[in-house]
């Protein structure tokens, strides 16, 4: 029997150690797949012809199979798929008078159940068996540099976790003044918030103009609709290359403006109210039109769905924002949602251009809730200090290690800034990080240290991811700068912490750490990307008519366009 190659073996890689070649079917498949593709970067990774490379997905022959020479001319009727064709007794002879007597003797095999076939039930037609099999039809081959660029998101998060650990170690070893840690952190947060506010202001101004223009042009195109439309313009299932985002945010800065403004500072407790404010303020003109559409009694108008969709969408994003904030202070969020939301809605209906007033109240709300959190933490700190006194330190280290690992693994790294996923809502991840910081803080001896570390952890794990994501959405350059800063900071911090306590030397350790950290990061990013690309040759997805079809529903897109 011929050495099996092709479909079966690659379909089930665990069978490679099989003591006997399990199938004859394999011989119906080519020993080497036809490589008819233009040279791609992945070409070089095709080590074994019996393995699939991702470019097989784009090959014109799918599934790759040898065209049977008997298929058309000979009406070849074989019950057995192995190589010794000539000795097959069942083979139909080619008759002189052609198709008619042939079809009387042996009709061509058809993949039909209602036809009375002149073949036994277990007959396997070589030409049609598995003809609809597709392998790797939806595989997107990775390119190296976009992959590296995408991995910066992970690097950023890991670096911010490392920074947090470094700060804890610094405070724990009393090498760093806790006040300076929290001071630097808070100042950085405040600056980030100002920057954010400025950006949001920029975008919402442009977005208001853009939104009104679009409202005039396409009746139901409320701000969310704009975002949806912009996203749908992109290919549907294509993994977003980071460059596109760059260009879209630079070249068309007002594209998603009105959608993005919804979640400014939404980790703070006032986010719900602010987002509803913004939402109402940005589309004051849409309100009457929307209401008109919504009560339009004509059931056959397909446009009806669009404003309804925008309506529900804006509320859902509001809900998500409020659900996020309710983690920190639910009562406050609830209250502000109920109170301010209604109030602002009324105000919005009354005065069409109160955008600045909304932003102002948003700022005040943010400051209010920030101070509320700080004071709550200050009050809680003495309790946190003695929280785990009866637990040994080893358990705490192990526990915080696992919690931070959970944080890293379950963090929401997706960078989309559209739809309801504006704010990274990985609640498991955030909760794990906050729990880690709590148990770590409980190791600290003084109330001030506990307060500093906890506040710092909220800044690092709660607010900073939102900022990072927004910065990335805003501009690729900011993202890169932020990444480099984070890597350098984390490396330097680790160097400082690991270094000797010798006076005068910490800066040298710090510098060394930065260099080593940057090197390790670059190596890891490049190596992992290369590894992932090299693993692609093992990819083997099988699709066929047995897979549940994916229904394409047009009006459905308007309802939930989250893939």
């Amino acid at each position, binding site marked *: *029997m011929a050495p099996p190659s092709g479909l*079966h073996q690659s*379909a*089930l890689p*665990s*069978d*490679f*150690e*099989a*003591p*006997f*070649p*399990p*199938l*004859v*079917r394999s011989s119906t498949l080519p020993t080497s797949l036809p490589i008819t593709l233009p040279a791609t970067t992945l070409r070089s990774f095709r080590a074994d012809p019996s393995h699939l490379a991702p470019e097989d997905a784009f090959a014109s022959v799918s599934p790759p199979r040898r065209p049977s020479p008997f298929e058309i001319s000979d009406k070849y009727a*074989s*019950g*057995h*798929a*192995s190589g*010794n064709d000539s*000795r*097959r*007794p*069942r083979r139909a002879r080619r008759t002189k008078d052609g198709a008619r007597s042939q079809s009387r003797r042996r009709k061509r095999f058809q*993949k*039909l*159940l*209602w036809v*009375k076939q002149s073949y*036994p*039930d*277990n*007959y*396997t037609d070589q030409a049609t*068996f*598995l003809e*609809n*099999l597709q392998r790797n039809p939806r595989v997107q081959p990775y390119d190296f540099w976009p992959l590296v660029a995408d991995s910066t998101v992970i690097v950023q998060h890991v670096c911010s976790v490392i920074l947090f650990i470094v700060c804890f170690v610094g405070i724990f070893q009393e090498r760093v003044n806790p006040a300076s840690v929290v001071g630097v952190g808070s100042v950085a947060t405040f600056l980030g918030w100002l920057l954010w506010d400025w950006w949001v202001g920029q975008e919402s101004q442009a977005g208001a103009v853009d939104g009104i223009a679009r409202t005039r042009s396409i009746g139901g195109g409320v701000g969310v609709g704009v975002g949806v439309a912009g996203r749908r313009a992109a290919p549907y299932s294509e993994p977003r290359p980071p460059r596109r985002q760059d260009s879209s945010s630079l070249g068309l800065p007002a594209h998603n403006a009105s959608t993005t403004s919804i979640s400014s500072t939404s980790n703070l407790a006032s986010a719900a109210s602010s987002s509803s404010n913004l939402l109402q303020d940005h589309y004051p003109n849409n309100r009457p039109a929307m209401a008109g559409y919504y009560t339009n009694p004509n*059931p*056959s108008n397909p446009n009806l769905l669009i404003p309804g969709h925008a309506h529900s969408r804006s509320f859902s994003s509001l809900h998500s924002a409020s659900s996020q904030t309710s983690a920190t202070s639910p009562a406050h969020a609830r209250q502000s949602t109920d109170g301010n939301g209604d109030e602002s809605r009324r105000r919005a209906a009354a005065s069409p251009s109160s955008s600045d007033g909304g932003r102002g109240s948003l700022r005040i709300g943010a400051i209010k809730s920030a101070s509320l959190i700080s004071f709550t933490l200050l009050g809680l700190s003495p309790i946190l200090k003695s929280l785990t006194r009866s637990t040994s330190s080893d358990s705490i280290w192990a526990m915080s290690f696992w919690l931070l690992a959970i944080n890293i693994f379950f963090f929401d790294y997706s960078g989309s800034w559209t739809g309801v996923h504006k704010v990274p809502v990985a609640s498991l991840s955030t909760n794990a990080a906050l729990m880690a910081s709590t148990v770590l803080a409980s190791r600290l001896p003084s109330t001030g240290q506990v307060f500093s570390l906890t506040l710092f952890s909220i800044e690092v794990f709660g607010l900073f991811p939102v900022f990072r994501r927004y910065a990335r959405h805003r501009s690729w350059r900011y993202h890169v700068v932020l990444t480099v800063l984070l890597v350098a900071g984390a490396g330097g911090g680790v160097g400082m912490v690991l270094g000797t306590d010798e006076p005068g030397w910490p800066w040298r350790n710090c510098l060394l750490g930065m260099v080593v950290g940057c090197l390790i990061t670059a190596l890891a990013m490049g190596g992992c990307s290369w590894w992932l690309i090299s693993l692609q040759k093992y990819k083997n*997805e*099988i699709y*066929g*008519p*047995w*897979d*549940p*079809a*994916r*229904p*394409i*529903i*047009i*009006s*459905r897109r308007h309802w939930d366009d989250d893939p």
Partner: protein
Amino acid sequence: MAPPPPSPPSPPSSTPTYNIAMVSDFFFPQPGGVESHIYQLSTKLMDRGHKVIIITHSYEDRTGVRYLTNGLKVYYVPFMVLYRSATFPSVFSFFPVFRNIVLREKIDIVHGHASLSSLCHEAILHARTMGLRTVFTDHSLFGFADAASIMTNKLLKFTLSDVDHVICVSHTCKENTVLRASLDPLMVSVIPNAVVAENFKPPSNPAETSRGHAFGQPAPPARQLGPHDTITIVVISRLFYNKGTDLLTAAIPRILENHPNTRFIIAGSGPKAIDLEQMIEQNVLQDRVEMLGPIRHEEVRDVMVRGHIYLHPSLTEAFGTVIVEAASCGLYVVCTQVGGIPEVLPSHMTVFAKPEEEDLVAATGKAIAALRANKVRTELFHEQVKSMYSWTNVALRTERVYNGISGAISDAEFYGYDASLNAANWSATRGRSGVQSFALIDRLKRYYGCGIWAGKLFCLCVIIDYLIFLCLEILFPRDKIDTCRDWPRKTLNEEKEPGVR
């Protein structure tokens, strides 16, 4: 009735008869496609002179041995039901009672059904340990991507590593099963489901047609449709995602908008029913869409004959018995081109659509236009379907499988090649064919190929199973188990059965 003969009568003709045990988790009183398949097949096999028993798990108050119509004996074995009436997969616990039943009934062939039934998988494993022939019928399609499918596929591979023959209900199902379980395609037969055509007759007499008046304006399903007659579109399916209810929800308003004199009757229940109801209310279609809720299988025909078109928007389907039933009732069928559906009905009975809203609307429009033009001779459908699908035919073809695996017909005839040619070079095909040995070492070889780790695990399972078998032989010796008396067998009347092939 003649008194039962003291011993099983030797068959008068050359065709041998077998003692067959059908094993599945899914059987009456639970309704469903697999259940009715097992029942119909068993009945027809008994008509052909075989002895058939059914082994399933107990249903609520139904435990022990029961007899159904025609003397079909059902063993309801008490087992814990895990999920959707599939039993808990405890690999070995079924063995003692299974061995007892098999010995009592003198079973030759164990025929398992449905790949989600762990009872069936266990029975096949134990049957091979006991040296019986095994057949497995697969009724469903599985993907390869999600975790549940991977688990099921591994389990299937385990069971089917040492099975004598596999039956699939459609060619698509065969391809799928061959890929899932790494089988030799030659040991997989395609034997479709069938319908009891007598139960799905089109409305013939006025009494029947008057049922059409039950809803709205009177719509007797006349054979000749005028341009303004109301066309009724029937949908009978469980309202789940994989039955395409989303497509249906999206398509109904557009179909009704495009075609004024149409209405829908939807029967079935499920989690997606709420979407349909919302759609009806949103578009104010209460007087044109009728939701019947869940109906029993006996009522399906009565609902079907109220319509002209059967719409089947399913997203995956191994066979789609319901569209055969609909065609048998004289309905023009509009269905999505998924799974095994394209194989089931000839093109003059169906309009195929891609599983897309746009295409489904267009296909329904085409069907309505064809009906209005009176181009479709739906009144002929019943006789045509009757000649295409019958359980007698299915039983005949299943019998051929039994003959093949038990050596009653030669390998050359069964597998379609000369056995002597392949006798020299041993292959997996030959090893797995009817003459495959029951020797433990040969079985272990087959199981070992299931994977690096899985193969060893499966071998361990098989060895344990064999040890249990030896223990049972010592603890409960064969001669202490009394055999039960057989129901009088029917003799096959060859003249009455038309030669199907």
